[in-house]
């Protein structure tokens, strides 16, 4: 195997490790919210620096490969994709952290209502993240396109959650503080889905050389 191929494989491994970490963060953030587990929420927040470190390392490695290897064709697409994917993963990690912060605030007050749609939505978003990364590993453009399509469902759920919470707030202003925080959480999850979609769109570019952003799949 050529040295360059080894470097590309190492880069891919690093993205995957970063992705696995972010997936866990998202899962734990939702678990911390639903189970009102403040210790778990705090533990997610402290892992943020690990993700940041991955983001910087991956960027540096990509820049180094661009400068020293002058990649072309699919190698070039792989490296530019890796740079963008690491940015999206880092943002997802920040959103997981935001969910945990809201979870800590919500844990101080009585529960507004049992969480039903939030975990459902979070599961979808998590699956999108996982599938986007699987699509990246296996250069699977079909799976990536599925992820892009699935985003609509997460968006719909956000709207639904908002409407439901609005009814709580209208009925009883005492719930506003909590309802707004939960609305934020829904928005964070929706953003995680958007970042997973970005990753998936980059995978289509990686495989096919086509930029599908800002188009309907």
């Amino acid at each position, binding site marked *: 195997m*050529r040295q360059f191929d080894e470097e590309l494989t190492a880069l891919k491994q690093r993205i995957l490790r970063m992705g696995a970490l972010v997936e866990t963060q998202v899962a734990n953030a939702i678990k911390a919210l639903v189970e009102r587990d403040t210790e778990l929420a705090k533990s997610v927040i402290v892992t943020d620096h690990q993700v940041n470190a991955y983001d910087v390392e991956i960027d540096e490695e990509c820049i180094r490969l661009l400068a020293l290897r*002058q*990649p*072309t*064709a*699919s190698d*070039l*697409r792989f490296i530019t994709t890796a740079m963008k994917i690491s940015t999206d993963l880092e943002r997802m990690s920040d959103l997981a952290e935001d969910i945990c912060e809201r979870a800590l605030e919500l844990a101080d007050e009585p529960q507004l209502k049992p969480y039903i749609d939030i975990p459902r939505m979070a599961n979808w978003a998590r699956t999108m993240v996982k599938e986007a990364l699987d699509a990246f590993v296996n250069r699977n453009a079909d799976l990536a396109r599925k992820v892009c399509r699935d985003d609509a469902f997460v968006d719909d759920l956000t709207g639904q959650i908002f409407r439901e919470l609005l009814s709580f707030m209208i009925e009883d202003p005492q719930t506003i503080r909590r309802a707004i925080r939960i609305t934020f959480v829904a928005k964070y999850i929706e953003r995680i889905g958007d970042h997973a979609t970005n990753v998936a769109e980059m995978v289509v570019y990686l495989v096919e*050389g086509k930029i599908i952003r800002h188009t309907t799949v």
Partner: protein
Amino acid sequence: MRSRSSFAIVTNNGCVSNMTEPIPALEVHDLDAWYGHTQALRKISLAIVEQRITAIIGPSGCGKSTFIRCLNRINDLIGGFRVAGRVLFQGQDLYAPDVDPIEIRLRIGMVFQKPNPFPKSIYDNVAYGPRLCGLKDPVRLDLLVEESLKKAALWDEVKDKLRRSALALSGGQQQRLCIARALAVEPEVLLLDEPCSALDPIATARIEDLLLDLKKNYTMVIVTHNMQQAARVSDSTAFFMLGQLVEFGPTSRIFTNPLEKVTEDYITGRFG
């Protein structure tokens, strides 16, 4: 930055299709070439667009030099060489029986891999072609020599030593002198066969800048082993392998998203 508005969209089989319709300077149709019994080119068809730089890349022995040498009939000088197919230069078949190859080589100039100035003065190197064409007037010759050296971005370095031997110049200067010599006969097309392979990076960068500058007035075809060079200077890139044209298209596409697996393997260095 070059304008993309009139960029040639060249399909895989070499057909040019674009709304702004770029003008082809040279159109090659089903070109075959043989050295004796060995076939060097197989059914090459492509269009070389006016005032653009077309790069020819491919592994050694793929026929890229043979190909550009067909474009000004310089291969005619090799015993046992023959071609089939057509090379149209402004609509005229270069290989038609009534075409004078000498005249073709005046209109389609060539610069070679190794700088090959004549063992004469700098001035006489540039004046050689025009003199051969019958230009005797010393005032006009002076003007032409100056103009050609300026076009080749060499004038400022040699204007005070025009009578000195060309062989005393550095490699990069010699190569620019060869470009000036080619330009002195006022060609329309310039063929460059690995013009920078014997030069250091600084001299190479100067030649590349020069080519981009000359593009305003000349059509150029460059054969290069240096893929970064093809990526830097050319508008279209043709990839040759085993005497065949594998892929031809806008350079930006060839280097980001080639259609053919072999092209991909070659430009990413995973060849063979």
